[in-house]
């Protein structure tokens, strides 16, 4: 019994194909109007050309597998890759196009060379700041030599993760947060566990060692519960990213999110290494949240959530974020808010979070640091716009500083300012 073969992707006409057929149709209409059959004879090959081009399509359909990797140093990213396809003869008519993330600028146009059965490419991109990006695989299609019809190539092509973290990440081991607010009526005990003073009882994981299981509590509740100790727990932390569209524009928002994803990955990783419980949330139109937890699996969960964090097309109400946050996390937690502060709504968010009882620390990347290296404006206007932007941002920061401490993140290749502020906390003025 043979398996039915899946049908290949459809054969599509290109813009040039439509142009020729449109030209042929115009010749036909003109022939009727001026009553000249010569125009019909000219129209015939124009109308038939895309169909004729379809006859040259490879049989079976082109299958292309992608193998690529990225290397980089100090902000530059070089991506090299190979596309191997079958049938080999059809690879000469392969077209490749690349989608560059907005957070990266192009150092040189894509270099592509065709070899027998293989297409090699090299991309040169760079970034002025840290990034956490997922690059979509190149769009690959067979296009007939005349460029009239094309068909997407099948095959395995995976995304490529680009990560450029701040330099301080490996040295963040000593950063501590203040302990979470004590619950009413809870008493510290003198009973010492394996690694310190008892903190609380929590659900046991599958790989929990028997010494950490609380047998009495497990028997009473009918499910596995484990003890957790103070020394293991440094603090609980929420990393919240504001993904709403801002007045800075889509390109700047994308660059901000690139830096924010990178910072969130690093901050979450650094506290998870310290065995703290970390939650991750992002707010666009609605709040999406990864609950508080610790361990390696939480690191994976947060990593996936960070990679799926993208700019929201719709701006959610700030109060909704604060209300939703209470459904996922208890109040009193330290909340690192990554926001571009590009609009009034971002300022409102800080106020609402404070009113709901969260200890907010705003990590705000400087707008000037997010700007691309190559400016489209003349030098004088560029300087003027930069100064105006700085003034506007300072006004925003001054408003928010009354409610929460702000870390002015100017050097986006480093999180030194953030680490310093955690170790030497500053208080909000109000």
């Amino acid at each position, binding site marked *: 019994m043979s398996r039915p073969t899946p049908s290949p992707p459809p054969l599509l006409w290109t813009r*040039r194909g439509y*142009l020729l057929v449109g030209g042929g149709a115009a010749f036909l209409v003109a022939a009727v109007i001026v009553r*000249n059959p010569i125009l019909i004879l000219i129209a015939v*090959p124009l109308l038939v*050309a895309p169909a004729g081009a379809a006859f040259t*399509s490879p049989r079976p359909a082109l299958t292309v597998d992608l193998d690529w990797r990225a290397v980089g140093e100090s902000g530059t990213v070089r991506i090299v890759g190979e596309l191997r396809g079958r049938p080999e003869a059809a690879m000469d008519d392969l077209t490749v196009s690349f989608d560059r993330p907005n957070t990266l600028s192009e150092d040189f146009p894509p270099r592509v060379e065709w070899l*027998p059965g293989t297409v090699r490419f090299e991309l040169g991109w760079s970034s002025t700041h840290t990034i956490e990006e997922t690059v979509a695989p190149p769009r690959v299609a067979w296009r007939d030599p*005349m460029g009239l019809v094309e068909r997407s190539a099948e095959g395995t092509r995976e995304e490529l993760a680009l990560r450029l973290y701040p330099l301080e990440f490996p040295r963040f081991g000593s950063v501590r947060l203040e302990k979470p607010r004590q619950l009413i009526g809870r008493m510290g005990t003198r009973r010492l566990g394996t690694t310190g003073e008892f903190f609380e009882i929590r659900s046991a994981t599958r790989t929990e060692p028997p010494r950490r299981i609380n047998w009495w509590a497990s028997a009473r509740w009918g499910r596995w519960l484990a003890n957790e100790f103070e020394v293991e727990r440094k603090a609980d932390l929420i990393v919240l990213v504001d993904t709403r569209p801002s007045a800075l524009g889509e390109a700047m928002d994308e660059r901000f999110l690139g830096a924010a994803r990178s910072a969130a990955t690093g901050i979450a990783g650094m506290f998870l290494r310290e065995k703290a419980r970390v939650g991750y949330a992002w707010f666009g139109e609605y709040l999406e949240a990864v609950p508080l937890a610790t361990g390696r699996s939480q690191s994976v969960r947060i990593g996936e959530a960070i990679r799926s964090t993208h700019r929201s097309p719709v701006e959610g109400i700030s109060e909704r974020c604060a209300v939703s946050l209470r459904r996922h996390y208890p109040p009193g937690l330290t909340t690192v808010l990554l926001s571009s502060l590009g609009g009034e709504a971002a300022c409102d968010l800080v106020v609402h979070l404070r009113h709901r009882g969260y200890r907010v620390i705003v990590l705000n990347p400087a707008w000037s640091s997010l700007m691309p290296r190559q400016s489209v404006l003349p030098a004088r206007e560029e300087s003027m716009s930069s100064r105006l932007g700085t003034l506007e941002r300072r006004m925003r920061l001054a408003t928010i500083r009354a409610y929460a401490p702000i870390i002015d993140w100017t050097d986006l290749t480093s999180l030194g300012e953030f680490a310093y502020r955690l170790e030497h906390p500053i208080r909000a003025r109000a």
Partner: protein
Amino acid sequence: MAAPNPRPMATARASLPAAVLVVALELFGLLTSFPWFLSLPIGGAGAVGAIVLRARSAGRQTDAAVLVVLLTLGILALGAPYTWSAGLLGGLVVLALLLWIADEPGRVANGARRALTGIGVVTLAFGVAWLSAFLLPSTHASVGVVAGFLVAVILLASVLLGQPELIERESSLGK
């Protein structure tokens, strides 16, 4: 084992298909009812303008260049008489145009050779239309009828080719 050499790429320099396009347009211009001092510059300007436009943009403006050629051809065709030579050269201009766009800069060289199958189908369709128009005892109106049938049949064939499941049915399971 030595690494395979990269395929040569087509460049924007003048090539044989470009020369064929210029000659075909000029000859077609000469056969029109326009005076030669008008038709020759129009044909030449259209062809050379398209070639220069494509060359200067390194292939990015090929569609605009095709439009220039089609406009030039349209202007000249308005003055073309209904003779076998004018009909033949009009079709040859389109075939030369297809050959020229197959030699596109930025793609692997010898595109015109790889496009021969497609151009062959177009040539066949045009040949049938031209023969039926001038060699068969027919009226002017039958040219349109024949052309319409031809285009419909070839479009149907291409649709079937694009959806092989319509013509490559497998035997039913279990038989």
